[in-house]
């Protein structure tokens, strides 16, 4: 529960008490002050709602800012990575180009060598053919001719092998060339792709920066607005407090005059609750998860003033009246959901918030331990009951008068 909501609830309760829902009007002269008090409290309630809304928006803006900064940082990091990647790709392309040049040169040289070798082979074949034809009828040196023929075959085979070797080397180089060209094409495609990714990241970063600056502007605006609202609320609260003091003073005088007996100080409030007939009992079995008084909220890093406690119990659990009394109010209150207020008499009230449903109606008398409503169902299986006790308009710690599991 936010501090704003608690303030609203407090204001509501104070207003309800002050406006005579709980007390009948005892003096006609107090009507003007009460009306003024109602107006002021209405305005205060409205301002607090606005403050709550603004605070929510500010919190949301802070979250958005945090997320946006995170995204900007991520994008920045992504851009750095992308630049490094692009630089690596450029180096690779450069190395591939150098290699491509070298291999192309080698292919050209091998092509020229291949041409020369083929031409020499053809000339050698021609010489061999001419020589063989000339020596075909040389019967005088048959063995010499035979040896020459054999050596010519060896010679031509060596030449042919040379041509084949060059051809193989050229084919290998051409394959290498094709491979490098393919690599270059793939790398360039990758570079284009990565460049596009980089551009996208850059544009996203720009957009995110623009969004962030918008969020920051919004945050500043909200902060300013919140500050202004809080100042107004503070002023308003001081006005309301002043009026309240006046009202209380009048009531005190009226009660002194009328009953002259049972007025007790607010310092005795816990004792007043303890003195209720049969004492007080726990509204349900559960554990106190939010304590009474000033508490530090780590989530939002703020200090809030709790006027009651929050008790965690099973979803749908029955809520019982802490003591004998009459239902003074049953309805929805902003920030507390369905709220039930039981008047125990003598200026003592118990307030049950965040309920799902009521089992009693306004004006109905309830006994101690009577079921007055139920907690809402929750997927987690746990729900929370808000319990606040007031004595003479002053909130007291429920755990001081009711045995609750902490």
């Amino acid at each position, binding site marked *: 529960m936010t501090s704003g909501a608690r303030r609203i609830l407090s204001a509501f309760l104070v207003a309800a008490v002050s406006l005579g829902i709980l007390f009948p009007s005892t003096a006609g002269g107090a009507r003007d002050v009460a009306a003024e008090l109602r107006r002021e409290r209405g305005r205060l309630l409205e301002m607090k709602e606005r403050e709550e809304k603004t605070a929510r928006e500010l919190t949301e803006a802070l979250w958005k800012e945090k997320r946006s900064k995170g995204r900007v940082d991520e994008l920045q990091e992504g851009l750095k990575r992308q630049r490094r990647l692009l630089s690596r790709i450029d180096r690779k392309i450069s190395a591939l180009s150098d290699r491509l040049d070298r291999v192309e040169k080698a292919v050209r040289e091998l092509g020229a060598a291949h041409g020369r070798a083929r031409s*020499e082979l053809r000339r050698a074949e021609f010489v061999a053919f001419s020589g063989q034809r000339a020596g075909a009828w040389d019967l005088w040196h048959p063995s010499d001719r035979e040896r020459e023929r054999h050596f010519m075959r060896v010679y031509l085979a060596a030449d042919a092998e040379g041509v084949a070797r060059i051809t193989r080397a050229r084919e290998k180089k051409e394959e290498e060339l094709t491979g490098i060209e393919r690599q270059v094409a793939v790398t360039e495609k990758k570079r284009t792709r990565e460049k596009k990714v980089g551009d996208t990241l850059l544009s996203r970063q720009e957009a995110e920066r623009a969004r962030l600056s918008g969020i920051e502007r919004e945050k500043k605006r909200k902060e300013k607005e919140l500050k202004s609202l809080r100042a107004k609320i503070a002023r308003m609260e001081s006005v309301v407090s002043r009026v309240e003091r006046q009202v209380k003073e009048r009531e005190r005088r009226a009660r002194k005059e009328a009953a002259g007996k049972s007025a007790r100080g607010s310092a005795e409030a816990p004792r007043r609750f303890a003195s209720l007939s049969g004492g007080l009992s726990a509204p349900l079995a559960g554990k106190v998860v939010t304590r009474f008084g000033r508490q530090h909220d780590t989530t939002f890093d703020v200090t809030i003033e709790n006027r009651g406690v929050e008790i965690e119990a099973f979803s749908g659990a029955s809520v019982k009246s802490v003591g004998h009394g009459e239902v003074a109010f049953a309805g929805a209150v902003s920030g507390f959901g369905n709220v039930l207020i039981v008047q125990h008499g003598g200026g003592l009230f118990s307030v049950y918030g965040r309920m799902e449903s009521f089992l009693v109606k306004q004006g109905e008398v309830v006994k101690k331990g009577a079921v007055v409503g139920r907690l809402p169902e929750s997927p987690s299986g746990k729900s929370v009951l808000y319990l606040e006790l007031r004595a003479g308009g002053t909130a007291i710690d429920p755990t001081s008068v009711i045995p609750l599991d902490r």
Partner: protein
Amino acid sequence: MSERPSLWWIDWRLSPGPLVRETIGRFLLFCLLGFALLTLLLSGGVSRILADRYAITAVLRAEVPSGEGEGLARKAAALPPVRSATYRDPETAWKEFLRSYPGLDPLRGAGENPLPGYIEIRIRHDRLTEEDVEFVVSALRAVSQVDQVLAGEEWLPRLLSAGRLASWACWGIFGAFLAGFFLFARLQERARAVALAGDFAFLAERGVSAGRLAFLRAAGAALSGFLLAALGAAAGGGALFLSLRKFPILERVIGSPADLLLPRTIASAALFSIGVALLCSATSLLGWSAARAGRK
């Protein structure tokens, strides 16, 4: 004591003039035949020419070093049918090859020599047969350093057949000359017997038997034929010796002059002389009988 005339060389005493001419003619003929005989004997017909033309080439593997090639050549030369075995290193083989195909020289430029070394093996002329060639080829093929043996398997049988035919032709011509001599000598003997028939009849009347007369005439002809043939062969041999000394190139076709003094050569010449003597004797007898038959 009655003195009986000697019947030896009766023809010389009865007709000396023609006989001198005959003898000179026969001597010249025998010189010629002796020359031809010794030439044929030494050359073996055409086998020495063929042996000079024919060679087995053992192509070595490219990695065989020169020292090893020369060692192999020495081992090949030790084979019985081999006359000579010469190792030629790759460089020499390349130069020889380029001499035969000069157009190839500029083609390889700085290219390395693709030819391996080889051993050229010459067979002795008297062992130039398919069996001996096969023996040498088999011995060479068994050597691991030898890559290939070129022995003219395709054309060697034809070459040897042609050589045999040529040798037979030479010997045939020689035989024809001998046969011609025989026929001519027979005619000469017959003619002389007819011419001296009166003298022979006179001798018969005085108690010289015809058989004895014929025998003695044949013996004289044989002796003179032997002597003439021997002298002719010696003269022919001398002429051949001088020719071979004067024209050494002929040694590659005919053979060494020293071979003339080999016992087998001398024995062959002696056999030739004996043969000629027998022929002369036979022609004398045949001429005698032909003359007597004609008179009857």
